[in-house]
């Protein structure tokens, strides 16, 4: 069983400061290749517990690839190899003793496009916990998860209607609620707002702020303002290389790399 008892206090120098947060996931010299072609090259940075870490970078730089490797969703893509270490509270996520299913139970994921199950709203939330042996009241769980995702008021009278009858933004919040129902340690989000209008986006951003108290969030985003607004740490990737990792404020206002500065100020390319 995986536990997060022994999360190491990792003291690294980040942006010239000591990284004093508790590290829940340490990405250490990770290289990910598709049939031999590296898409992520020797990337290392820590993910701090109960913080929001954003991953930014131009299209095709390997953000999704890196994110998917954290909860082993890459296993379903043919020809992927992962080198290096991803240690989640001291467990190497890729060690042969670790069951990838177990990893995914603890590290949830929200995808770029809302992908609710073609079932009722209620079932969407309850299914994950139930198959994983949840014994408590699913009614309570559904309500709690939907409240956390700020969706309860909108759907409480139609829990047994199809999830596909919801709007895109509501569907995405449902997907977040579904992931939260598993009570994951870490929540991975791949451009969760890219299909949403500004109002739904700000709903979700508010939500992330609240969730931070209980969950660790890693979010991939193309939206610089969003990264700057919501995240505590930011990693900037370019063509598979980690160019810079640091405290978000510093990375956006006083980046140490010229390429970072060009990218965040929009002078990229």
């Amino acid at each position, binding site marked *: 069983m995986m536990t997060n008892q022994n999360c190491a206090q990792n003291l690294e120098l980040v942006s010239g400061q000591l990284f004093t947060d508790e590290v829940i996931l340490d990405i250490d010299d990770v290289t990910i290749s598709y049939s031999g072609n590296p898409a992520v090259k020797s990337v290392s940075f820590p993910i701090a517990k109960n913080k929001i870490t954003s991953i930014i970078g131009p299209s095709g730089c390997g953000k999704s690839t890196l994110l998917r490797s954290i909860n082993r969703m890459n296993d379903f893509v043919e020809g992927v190899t992962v080198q290096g270490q991803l240690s989640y509270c001291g467990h190497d996520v890729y060690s042969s003793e670790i069951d990838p299913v177990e990893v995914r139970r603890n590290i949830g994921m929200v995808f770029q496009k809302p*992908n609710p199950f073609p079932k009722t709203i209620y079932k969407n939330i309850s299914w994950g916990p139930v198959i994983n042996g949840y014994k408590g009241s699913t009614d309570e769980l559904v309500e709690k998860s939907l409240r956390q995702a700020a969706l309860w008021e909108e759907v409480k009278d139609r829990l047994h209607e199809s999830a596909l009858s919801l709007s895109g933004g509501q569907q995405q919040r449902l997907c977040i609620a579904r992931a939260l129902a598993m009570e994951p340690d870490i929540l991975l989000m791949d451009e969760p707002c890219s299909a949403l209008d500004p109002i739904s986006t700000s709903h979700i951003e508010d939500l992330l702020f609240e969730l931070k108290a209980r969950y660790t969030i890693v979010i991939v985003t193309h939206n610089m303002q969003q990264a700057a607004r919501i995240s505590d740490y930011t990693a900037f990737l370019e063509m598979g290389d980690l160019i810079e990792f640091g405290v978000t404020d510093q990375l956006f206002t006083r980046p140490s790399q010229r390429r970072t500065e060009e990218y965040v100020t929009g002078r990229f390319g």
Partner: protein
Amino acid sequence: MNSDLKLANDNIAARHRKARIFRMFCAGVTWMGAGLLAILLIQVTVDGIKWLDYQFLTSFPSRFPYKAGIKSALVGTLWLIVMIAMVSIPIGVATALYLEELSRKGRFAKLIEINISNLAGVPSIVYGIIGLAIFVRGLGLERSLLSGALTMSLLILPVIIIASREAIKTVPMSIRQAAYALGATRWQTAWAHVLPASFPGILTGVILALSRAIGETAPLIMIGALTYVAFLPEGPMDSFTALPIQIFNWVSRPQQEFHELAAGGIIVLLIVLLTMNATAIFIRQKTEKKLQ
């Protein structure tokens, strides 16, 4: 500039003409097929309709056309449908699910895939011979309903597997990813999400395959279904006859009345088929609506 535009216009006119000709060709072919079918149906109905009555449905076959009926053949066919469905649906769908969702996509899976496609093209009489050798003689099941159903199941398994795989392939990857990301195993994902989402497609394939099975005559003749049965089967080990066999038997007699009886039998067979297809469409629409 002007001439360029004109050239383009000419081209468009030519393309429209081509499209129109092609459309007319397609429409013609479609109507020809439908027309031939209609002529056949009308012919059969004209011949057979006067024989279709309660007595025809509830009598056993007889030497006298006015006493002859289709009871044992109809009941035999219904038995067959149920038994074939019970054997072929679980095996076929499970195989498709295994090949698409659970197995490693290696050389072995490829080999099986090619074999199944080939099996779908094997003539039905060959399945009859296999059924005779394995079920009737080898396993000693005699000329029973069970032998018939097992043989027919072999015959339609490839079709069910191929149709089910196609249906499973249409389930969006994003649904599987959603399930995996919740810590579901492949099996749990396949069972709870992939199977229900592909259900309408699988159902269509299954019904088409079953329709094929109940229209087949050759394998049943091969395994020795009887042509004259004056009793109803009471269990899977009883001997039996089926609609196409009864029809075949009547057609091969010299008297005109028996030919008309055969037409009546064909109408009954068609009604059974149409009922099955209608059921399939009904269930499909109901489930599809639920998914939307």
